[in-house]
């Protein structure tokens, strides 16, 4: 769980984290939005279904894989927020879609 410091970096961008509006600063990543929203996990692993949150925040660990604007398996730490962005948890292995 992280908290913003509006005095240092005002939150000006509204994104939807699991459908809930969250205000985050310009320049934050989708992974940062998930941490600021206080989600218990950003994904569950394909192997055992264990919960994960971001580890490295710099594109190395791939623990922040999430569904962003309907596209799964995005590295949420590498995607800057944009107004109205929809960020959702990823559950286990990816399911093939028609």
């Amino acid at each position, binding site marked *: 769980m*992280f*908290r*913003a410091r509006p005095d*240092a970096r005002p939150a000006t961008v509204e994104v939807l984290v699991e459908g809930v509006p969250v205000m985050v600063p310009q320049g*934050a990543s989708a992974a940062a939005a998930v941490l*600021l929203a206080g989600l218990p996990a950003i994904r569950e692993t394909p192997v055992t279904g264990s919960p994960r949150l971001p580890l490295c*925040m710099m*594109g190395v660990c791939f623990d922040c894989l999430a569904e962003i604007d309907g*596209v799964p398996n995005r590295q949420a730490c590498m995607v*800057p927020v944009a107004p109205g962005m929809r960020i959702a948890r990823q559950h286990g292995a990816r399911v093939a879609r028609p």
Partner: protein
Amino acid sequence: MTHDLAIIGAGPAGMAAAVEARAHGLSVLVVDENAAPGGQVFRAAEAAAGDPAVAPELAPGLQLIAAFRASGADHRAATTLWHLDPDDGLLSLSDANGVAEARARRILLATGALERPVPIPGWTLPGVMTAGAAQILLKSAGAVPAGATVLAGQGPLVWLLAVQLARAGAPPLVLETRSTAISVALPRGGLWAGRRLLAKGLALMAEARRRGVRVVRGVRGLRAEGGSRVERIVWYGGSAPCDTLLLHEGVIPQTHVSRAIGLDHAWDAAQACWRPVLDGFGASSHDRIAIAGDGAGIGGWEAAVASGRLAGLDAARRLDALDRAGFAARAAAPLAARHAALALRPFLDALYAPPASVLAPPDDVIACRCEEVTAGAIRAAARLGATGPNQMKAYLRCGMGPCQGRMCAPTVAALIAEARGVPPEAVAPLRPRAPYKPLTVGLLAGSAESGQQPAQ
């Protein structure tokens, strides 16, 4: 169009190389995954320059970023290199809009460092992150951990982050894992030549004390505990409540691309990592490819700027934009700067040497986070005959998950070396494969379709 020089990474080394190469008239392409230049050390420096928690450390980067932005280099931000053909000088790129190709006569890898993996029991629990991750959140979003924050590990970044979090109103409990006595590191020397950096480090430690950061020294046997997330940090002889655990055992070169394209690498025993084999100006074992910055061996941002400038000059010389005398005249200052910036490094490498339990963790610890493979399973497979990380993929899938071995490969190799009773340099490092980052079939298909359209 073919660029004279393509640079991968817009951190200190990449920016400095771009500025230098542009000054000699080279056409320069800079590819960087982040939205703004700066790399990790000057991450979001322009946006965060007004935040008193991080401003003092970001200030030195602003001038370099401004020079880079004014240099006339073709800066492709938020763009990923997913394949590199060194023989043809062909770069395959992807961004939010699709895939693209670029060509360059010379290519500089300035991919920087990543934090050494710190596999301790419980490190996959939500709420456990790297120290660098918390610093990125602070720089890029102004965010700090809420609740009980524990910063465990060793190295310069531990002290820097402790101070920055304290300035931001979120002082952590620091559990220092350093196990090397200062008296053991002192004979490495460099303290006088490196006195400016040493003074900066001592000032940070003093500021941490002044801001009331609590420090426990000589911590061993770290263990993160909790149900669905980290709740407690336990060590030999102590424990503390913990909502966010930040781990750090130093940084290692990001050699994913340099290993993938098959450059020569050598084991660096002092830094316990592989580093590419280079000449004094960054030229690698492939005649088109150079490497500068922490991706060539950990030296810090000041050394990275100097080595970036040298690589930019070397590119200008090789492409006949700079004669021998001009090169010698221009190279003198960055050579001296790099020498000074690296003076303290042997002392730091010795003082903050990672403990054996971090390099090769106990059997019950998960080593490969993607495929959830324990150290014990890797040791068992090594005893069965897996001779290196490349073979281990077939046994246990380590290195085949989404991170492609970025996180686990050093640990897997160290475990194999230990199980086989050979030195670490006897285990060949993982050979990554393209695409270096996953990309969708849709992106590739879109590029094929556009390739079939007549030019507008």
